[in-house]
């Protein structure tokens, strides 16, 4: 196995995720794109774990999953609250705060 294709794949996924955060307007989809970024990082971590020959990378990926789970709960709770208040989950609708 060679490392490079895996890392490039993770880089591409990470980029797509970050572009998605910037272009999508729906808060839930934005959040999904963030999850995509985390997943891309996990791929890199697991690949590097194999390349470096130690399991620290896999542990880190495991931690990212735990963190993501907690983040999702908090994040979706916040999004739900906003939605219930404003009946919309679009990021731009939340625009009482301006520059």
């Amino acid at each position, binding site marked *: 196995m060679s490392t*490079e294709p895996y890392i490039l794949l993770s880089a591409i996924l990470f*980029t797509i995720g970050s572009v998605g955060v910037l272009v999508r307007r729906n808060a839930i989809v934005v959040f999904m794109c963030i999850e995509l970024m985390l997943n891309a990082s996990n791929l890199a971590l697991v690949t590097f*774990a194999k390349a470096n020959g130690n*399991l620290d990378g896999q542990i880190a990926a495991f931690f990212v*999953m735990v963190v993501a789970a907690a983040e*999702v709960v908090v994040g979706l*709770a916040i999004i739900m609250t906003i939605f219930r208040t404003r009946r919309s989950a679009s990021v731009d609708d939340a625009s009482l705060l301006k520059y």
Partner: protein
Amino acid sequence: MTVFWILAPIMVLAALCILFVRKAVHAALLLAVVMMSLAMLYASLDAPFLFAVQIIVYTGAILMLFLFVLMLVGVDASDSVVETIRGQRLLATVLGLVFGATLVIGLSQVTWGTVVGLDEANAGGNVPALANLLFSKYIFAFEATSALLITAAVGAMVLAHREKLTPKEKQPEAAARRMREYAETGRHPGPLPAPGVFARHNAVDTPALLPDGSPSQESISRVLAARGTIRSASVDDVDDVQRQLSATESSESSESSDRADEQEDGQ
């Protein structure tokens, strides 16, 4: 590597589609594709434990939570096409492409050392080896994640759980209240009228017509009204229907369908 070359294009394609699909549900399903593929990649990278966790935690729990919230929010909550900051999307895309190009070019210039492989580290089995690390070297980080989980639980409770401050209204109280309201404000005490029963469209998105021919706004769901997917119905429709009926008697059915189309356009 075969697994990789099969999965990689699928993943990139699915990820790209997340950027373009209109509906959030579709995005979630595409994300599921990426995550499942990732799980398989983990398996091929000597990480069987993560393979399982990825499927159980990510695809099983996190994604389900996403779908759950999407259902609560409304399945067709879609993006608005209107940009609030002009050129923001274009700028973001350009920035993202530049960033991605830097990342990819930078990483592809790296000279990769030999892959050590995990045969030695995984000698006693992947799961015991991970457990060994987790409960020795990373024990503190592991403990600290408990704070995260507690926070998440407390947070969800705070934001979503509503305590009952008043005793639940039972049927007798409800009836009494309705009558009282009727006496005070004249609000109709009975159930709301059903939608669309009098019109041609026996459907929930069409208001019922009152005896005088005007549509009853109370007969339709508020949610549908908010989404703007209500068909209108008016007194004229009744006349139309009558005319239509008499016309059907005289002429053939083809004409009548034409007229129905026209009528639809007119609305």
